[in-house]
């Protein structure tokens, strides 16, 4: 069973549940819940948790659900953060870096090409290095940033999961980074929305592989 956390201001949690249900079982997890028993994987969905007050993701990290998710992640449980979920995971210190306002100062909403890096963990196992994925972005603060020396280290430790293909970087992120993992590889965050790319009807089903990674764990557990 995959749990999809819902904060006040989340808006993609239902699409995330629907995406999970294509490959397994899922349920919503209200932000005040702190009991994750029975859950094999967690999705932190997109949206504007707590109105993006202060900084995107800054307040959500203090919710009971996120404190439970931090323990779940420390125990090796797979966690996928999408867009605002990525921002929350960075603010919570579960993923490296931070998300800054887009270089162009505008909300961007478009299909982008991603290139998968050689990365580990349950997600890396589903997605071969070098494969390209067509997935939409829609965000205002998606410019991933970390100091140069940190990015060097993340590159050499295989924690850069996805980059925007050449010419596709929509926000000015450092070295075209679109998604990163934690050191163990069980926590992945990315700005593009794989839950909106799970049906050919809407242009692409390239996002399914990430949910498959969560469901695979569910079956195995």
């Amino acid at each position, binding site marked *: 069973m995959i749990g999809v956390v819902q904060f006040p201001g989340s808006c993609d949690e239902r699409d995330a549940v629907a995406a999970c249900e294509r490959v397994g079982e899922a349920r919503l997890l209200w932000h005040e819940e702190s009991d994750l028993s029975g859950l094999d994987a967690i999705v932190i969905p997109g949206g504007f948790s707590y109105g993006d007050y202060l900084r995107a993701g800054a*307040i959500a990290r203090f919710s009971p659900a996120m404190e439970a998710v931090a323990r779940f992640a420390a125990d090796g449980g797979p966690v996928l953060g999408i867009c605002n979920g990525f921002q929350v995971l960075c603010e919570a210190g579960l993923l490296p870096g931070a998300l*800054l306002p887009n270089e162009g100062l505008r909300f961007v909403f478009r299909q982008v090409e991603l290139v998968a890096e050689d990365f580990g963990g349950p997600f890396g196992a589903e997605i071969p290095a070098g494969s390209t994925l067509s997935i939409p972005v829609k965000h205002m603060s998606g410019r991933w940033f970390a100091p140069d020396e940190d990015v060097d280290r993340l590159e050499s430790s295989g924690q850069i999961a996805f980059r925007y293909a050449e010419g596709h970087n929509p926000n000015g992120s450092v070295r075209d980074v679109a998604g990163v993992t934690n050191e163990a590889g069980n926590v992945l965050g990315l700005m593009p929305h794989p839950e909106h790319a799970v049906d050919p009807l809407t242009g692409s089903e390239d996002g399914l592989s990430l949910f498959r990674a969560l469901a695979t764990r569910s079956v195995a557990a």
Partner: protein
Amino acid sequence: MKAKVLIRPKEGILDPQGKAVERALPALGFEGVSDVRVGRLVELETDDPSKLDSLCEKLLANPLIEDFEVQLEDGKG
């Protein structure tokens, strides 16, 4: 005690908001203004000013991308 917390983008980090403001100024007749950086001001009242630094590090600012400066109302700080 009243306090003000000034939060700025760290040096070296591109601040597109500051750039946009800077670019708009000449059109309005304000020449010779450069290095515009846009940050945030948080005003608050606290019983224990000694906790302000840790409060800033944990919530008000993200130390990876922002610097903060605490100003207490009596002018110290």
